[in-house]
């Protein structure tokens, strides 16, 4: 599967990736599905969904709206099936999830921008727009 590799040493905290995320999903919401936060030493840290091998958000989802796709490895979210119970927000160990800020209904979940390609492969706009190549798309192996 593919994951977004993060090189913190290259990140300058410009938030271009966050803006790109909003733009990529602008027909669905006004929020980003990623974030860049600043640690105690004021170094930026891009916090992006990992599409975990053992995804806590999937384990905790009581409607089946959050699912791990066995073919692509991506954790997919079905907003129609979602009950807006927010258990996934609580369960993400890295504090990546939130709900949309207008209706408080939809979970802001990275989809690897598969909607941007014909064949459903990943094409994250954040990676495309990062001016520092701090985030790159890489193939990884799951155990």
């Amino acid at each position: 599967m593919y994951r977004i590799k993060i090189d913190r040493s290259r990140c300058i905290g410009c938030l271009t990736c966050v803006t790109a995320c909003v733009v990529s999903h602008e027909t669905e919401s006004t929020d980003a599905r990623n974030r860049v936060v600043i640690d105690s030493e004021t170094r930026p840290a891009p916090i992006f969904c990992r599409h975990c091998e053992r995804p806590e958000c999937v384990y905790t989802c009581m409607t089946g709206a959050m699912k791990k796709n066995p073919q692509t490895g991506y954790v997919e979210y079905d907003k129609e099936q979602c009950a807006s119970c927010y258990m996934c927000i609580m369960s993400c160990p890295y504090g990546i999830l939130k709900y949309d800020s207008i209706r408080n209904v939809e979970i802001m979940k990275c989809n690897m921008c598969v909607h941007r390609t014909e064949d459903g492969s990943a094409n994250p706009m954040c990676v495309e727009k990062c001016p520092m190549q701090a985030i790159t798309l890489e193939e990884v192996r799951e155990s």
Partner: protein
Amino acid sequence: MKYVVLGSSAAGVNGVRELRRLDADSEIVLISKDKEIYSRCILHQYLGGKRTMERLCFAEKDFETLYGITWFKERSCTHLKPEEKEVVLENGETVSYDKLLIATGSHTFVPPVKNLKEAKNVVGFRNIEDMEVLKDAAKHAKHIIVMGAGLVGLDCASGFLELGVKVTLVEMAGWLLSKQLDKRAAEAYQDAFAGRGVKQYYGVGIAEVTLDEENRITEAVLTDGTRLPCDFVVVTAGVRSNVEFLEGTGIELSRFGLVYDETGKTSDDNIYGAGDVSGSSPIWPVAVKEGIVAASNMAGVPRKMTDFFASKSTMNFLGIPSMSLGDVNLEGEDIEVEVKKTKDSYKKILHKNGKIVGAVLQGDLAYGGILQQLIARKIDVRRVKKPIFDIDYSDFFHMKENFEYYFEEE
């Protein structure tokens, strides 16, 4: 190898998935009382007409064929013969197994209230069959009392509100969701429910119900003497594990339910358990994980359950989001309490010697997941030089070779 799984909810379904993932060829038999897979956590949306039966299903539509299983529906298990490695069903049929997963869940506990057991117009809030009874009650009953204002009781009240039915809540504790929320956060819900016409009584229980000659409730008498008109009672005051069929089998039970170790194994080497049947951590994510862990060990791939942190919940009653972690009502000299309020949100974090022990967030839950990890892992947060409400993963950032994140063990 022949696997038999009892129960088709969170633990059973995830157990089946894991068994098939690890063992492509073996026979898997699923036996369930339920005739369909459905999520008990969203039944209130079915009651309220916001979700169809089809959309209660949390598993794949073609579950049976996708995982290549034999599924005996609408059959409950009445006995077990560990020596013969057989389960006995209520119609007398027996099903043999090599490895058995018990994920039979729990049932509504009816508290020992005078006349309640004899009453006809009483139901729990747990099964799809309960919802059919309640849909009917919504049409006829004028005075529905919900016994208990916990997560399930409030689900019930919310579902009825969708139908325009205003129930009355009776709760022994001083406020609703007393295990999950502090008084202030609870009041936001109490006011919202009151605004929608839901009457609420706190700090009192139901002492007895009055029955007519047909054993139908006509009145409820509270512990403070208050008499309330009542023609239907919904009991949401806890659950008990479904272990009756294990009586006399020699399999170890506690006073709460089935006993199993961190691999899911019971006192019998061929029998595993998962989910609410333990009677210890009755929440969805624990049931899912226990199902996966038990199945993995049944299929010969060793794995241990490590996550026992179960005092956590989120809620969204009447459009007010809240998250509760750990103990939010702790008091004591060494407990420090920090509160942050804005126009739309209320946040409280309790910490002790640098470790967060409880948190309640209301109105703004964004990125709150980190708090669960800090509490469950007992991570000292004093090295974070930021306000406690602004703690995020940046100060704990670690990435594996495959770019997954992780927390360093302290």
